[in-house]
């Protein structure tokens, strides 16, 4: 028995539901020594800004139980270098999603415009970075500002647009509905949780930026909760992100309503993680007699048996 692994994420046909999370996969070719990139659903590249950007001073990362903190500061090569150098290096057949970031709505829209006409299959608008001074999370927390951002990026883009939402909000369902109402094609969630950790020896924050984002297996149940709430609130497809390490983890997200998933921090501990998750998800489905992965989507039973 073979499993039909194909899914459609907001107009983007994926050979399987497993993508890589932005910021954890570079621009893709860093992983070419470890596996064939065409075998996963696609890659979401590092968030791009209009101009190249230097990140935060170190320390930028810290390990915590079952997770890690980061405050990188959206260091990236800029959208032009991405188009001229990074994108052409990726083999044909790799589905590429570009992550877009700006410090104001105009710069978000301008990055979307520059990407128009390129081979990127979709844009993911990063409305949720928790560790930069301006932009990012503040766009994803205020429904009125988020609506404006979705409108502007949707208008500027020539391919489907997904909005990447923050978990640092009170009502994820409301923000999901705002995105859908303004024409977003899909959602991605969650970005990292805004956190703080302390070095007791120095009595200083462990990160130079003081605040950072928590990722890794520690955040998986929270991500499942938010994906479940968001996917029930909207019709557009949701990509589930947060602590995925295995095919079984990915299957949980599908059951909670995700159409696709992204593997993030696991890429650091295992450079083959995304492919391992894709293969593990297929093996899980096969073991359950599931012939199409789409049959798992939203299959969570909450009533007593």
């Amino acid at each position: 028995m073979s499993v039909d692994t194909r899914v459609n994420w907001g107009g983007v046909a994926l050979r399987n539901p497993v993508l890589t999370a932005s910021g954890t996969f570079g621009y893709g070719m860093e992983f070419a020594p470890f596996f064939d990139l065409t075998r996963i659903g696609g890659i979401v590249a590092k968030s791009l800004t209009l101009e190249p950007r230097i990140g935060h001073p170190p320390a930028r990362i810290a390990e915590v139980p079952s997770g890690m903190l980061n405050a990188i500061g959206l260091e990236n090569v800029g959208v032009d270098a991405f188009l001229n150098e990074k994108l052409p290096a990726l083999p044909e057949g790799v589905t590429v999603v570009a992550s877009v970031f700006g410090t104001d709505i105009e710069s978000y829209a301008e990055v979307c415009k520059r990407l128009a006409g390129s081979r990127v299959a979709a844009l993911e608008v990063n409305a949720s970075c928790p560790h930069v001074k301006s932009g990012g999370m503040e766009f994803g927390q205020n429904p009125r500002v988020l609506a404006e951002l979705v409108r502007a990026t949707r208008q500027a883009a020539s391919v489907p647009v997904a909005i990447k939402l923050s978990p640092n909000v009170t009502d994820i369902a409301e923000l999901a509905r705002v995105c859908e109402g303004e024409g977003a094609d899909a959602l991605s969630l969650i970005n990292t949780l805004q956190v703080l950790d302390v070095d007791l020896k120095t009595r200083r924050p462990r990160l130079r930026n003081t605040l950072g984002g928590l990722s890794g297996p520690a955040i998986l149940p929270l991500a499942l909760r938010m994906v479940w709430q968001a996917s029930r609130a909207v019709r557009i497809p949701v990509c589930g992100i947060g602590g995925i390490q295995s095919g079984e983890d990915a299957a949980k997200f599908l059951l909670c309503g995700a159409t696709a998933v992204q593997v993030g921090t696991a890429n650091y501990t295992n450079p083959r993680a995304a492919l391992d998750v894709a293969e593990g998800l297929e093996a899980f489905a096969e073991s359950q007699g599931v012939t199409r992965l789409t049959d798992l989507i939203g299959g969570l039973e909450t009533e007593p048996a």
Partner: protein
Amino acid sequence: MTSLRVDAEVAENRDEGGANRRLRLRVPDWPGSAPGQFVMLSPGVRSSVERFDPLLPRPMAVYRVHDGCLEVLYKVTGRGTALLADARSGERVRVVGPLGKGFPESVGKCLLVGGGTGIASLYDLAARDRERSHVLLGARSQRDLMGQEDFAALGVALSIATEDGSTGSSGLVTALLERELETATNATVFACGPTPMMRASAEIAAKHGARCFVSLENPMACGIGVCQGCAAPRANGGYALVCRDGPVFDANEVLWEAMP
């Protein structure tokens, strides 16, 4: 050299006195590595229960490839290395590597300065340039020294300094460097160890007009240039990634006062 990801069998994981340990891993497909390159090690990947804590792999210098095994020297300093120390023969440790850019070729005399666990980055370099190398090893105490017998067996010139004077000369290894550079001409310094030791080595080398290369050890999550956690401040602005642009840098490229 292309990098591998392999779950390698532990051939031996032995106590070498104090907190020092030597891990020998069977990596039959090892593509070879240049002196100064490193690996990311995840212990316990094949344990019977899934392990997420500690989560991240640990960067370790390739000490050498010897008797068909990849060797790593390490000290138990925290939870990651404690877990690594628990790996028994026959168990698996995930290896990603070889990674990074190693020490460049040089001419003339090589002064290799190793402090603490930084010593482990220098063995292959000493082996490459055996006749021209003078190895200077420093540690707090005799029991903290790593790999002393291996360096001695290479037949390279070897000098030791310990802070408590328990072996070799008493004091810092950088004092040995200062003394060597007073008489050496056309020497290149290669240093790996704690940041203050590398910075002092760089300053001493600069004072004597010698080139100096350092191997930085910033914490990192991925080792392959994607997490951007291991940023080291550059003297000419911005950041270099220790894993991708290093770990070996010309000491002049590093903005020492901004190093974490």
